């Protein structure tokens, strides 16, 4: 762990309230004891099914209680199973917005709502990215622009809209969910794409690894941890049972080592 680094976890498609979500959450809390990440980004489908107060409790507050109690912040993005009213839930840190940005150290994060990528949101993203002075620009949202998942696959139309903007303004890393597997895609036009849609849900055996796939895991639930220090990103993907299923380093404007 590097002093002054930005440390976070990424989870997606987790809000089931089922035992697997709880087990991943426990593993996250356990992992945090030796690797103290300070916040979590969510990649959508935060709350599946019912949206009652009890649902929010069982599918978010209880499983992540150990993290919340230790002051870990959650920054949510919305998936297609989410209620847009989740943006008013303080613990999701969306400040009432369906899409928003925040800074941590030398990193600027951009949370998008890919269920409804209207011209207003696209213009907002362009404006924000153009004004960003951050060393690292990271976007996160629900639908994966590149995916080898058999159920949904790549969101090609969203990619047509977003990828040229990412390239133009130097976005280096993108996190998404929707496909209930983990996948790290080979850099596309210099951008690193991660899918982590298996932090509660899982479609075992659904990853059809192909030319896009740099690494993947579809045998169990998982979560992703990231540390950004200077020009380097260190990532580690951990399964529900605590096995590291992928790890590596990304150097800014360079290749994965």
């Amino acid at each position, binding site marked *: 762990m590097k002093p002054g680094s930005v440390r976070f976890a990424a989870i997606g498609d987790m809000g089931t309230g089922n035992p697997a979500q709880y087990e991943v959450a426990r593993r996250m809390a356990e992992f945090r004891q030796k690797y103290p990440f300070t916040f979590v980004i969510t990649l959508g489908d935060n709350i599946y099914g019912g949206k009652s107060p009890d649902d929010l409790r069982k599918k978010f507050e209880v499983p992540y209680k150990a993290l919340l109690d230790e002051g870990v912040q959650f920054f949510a993005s919305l998936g297609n199973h989410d209620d847009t009213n989740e943006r008013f839930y303080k613990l999701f840190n969306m400040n009432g917005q369906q899409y928003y940005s925040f800074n941590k150290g030398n990193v600027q994060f951009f949370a998008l709502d890919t269920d409804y990528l209207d011209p207003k949101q696209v*213009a907002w993203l362009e404006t924000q990215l153009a004004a960003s002075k951050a060393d690292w620009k990271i976007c996160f949202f629900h639908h994966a622009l590149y995916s080898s998942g058999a159920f949904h696959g790549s969101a090609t139309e969203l990619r047509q809209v977003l990828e040229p903007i990412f390239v133009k303004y130097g976005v280096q890393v993108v996190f998404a969910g929707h496909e209930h597997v983990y996948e790290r895609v080979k850099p596309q036009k210099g951008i690193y794409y991660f899918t982590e849609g298996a932090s509660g849900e899982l479609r075992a055996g659904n990853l059809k690894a192909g030319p896009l796939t740099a690494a993947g895991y579809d045998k169990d639930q998982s979560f992703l941890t990231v540390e950004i220090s200077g020009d380097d990103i260190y990532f580690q993907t951990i399964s529900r049972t605590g096995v590291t299923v992928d790890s590596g380093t990304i150097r800014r404007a360079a290749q994965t080592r």
Partner: protein
Amino acid sequence: MMPRLISRILAGSGRIALLNGILLLAAGEMPAQSPVPAFQGFVERVRQYVTSQRPVRHLRTTNRRKQIVERRAELVRRIRETRATAQQGDIFTPVLADEFRQVIRSAFQGPNAINVRNTVRRGDPQPGWVISINGSYPDDLPLTTVPPSLLLRLPQLPPEVAYRIMGHDFVLQDTEARLVIDYIPAAIPTVTRAPLRSGHAQH
């Protein structure tokens, strides 16, 4: 016709000037001979809904889960009360519905149709759902992604409402109350997997 369409979109928002790539994408889908829909009166009808049939809201974030749910329930109750006599076609009048159908059709049939259809197909579409005016979009159903190239070609909406796709129907939804404000039946072509389930939007 395309320059007029682009001019109209640009006039709607100066920031859209940033969207050159998307405009080209949309331009590629619109048949050159198509008349440009004017959507005359649509924005005014939507504005009337937002200002006259929906209570003014100044929402803040809260830690209280119950408060979020209660606020939504209260909003639903008041909208239904105000719009008790609302009918399908009040906002999407027959003329407007034809114009929307024209734009939707061109998006689903143009050169970019494969991507538009993939957007809907990969967004967990819910075919077979029967909707009703002032009916709720069920909490346990996913949203279908609205193709961004389609959104670009439709009148922009205030944040209180959004376009949605529910099965084959094109819907105007209150984003916070999740109510169906109006809809155009059978406007969306079949792009789906086998139906996951079917039923009725609940009051």
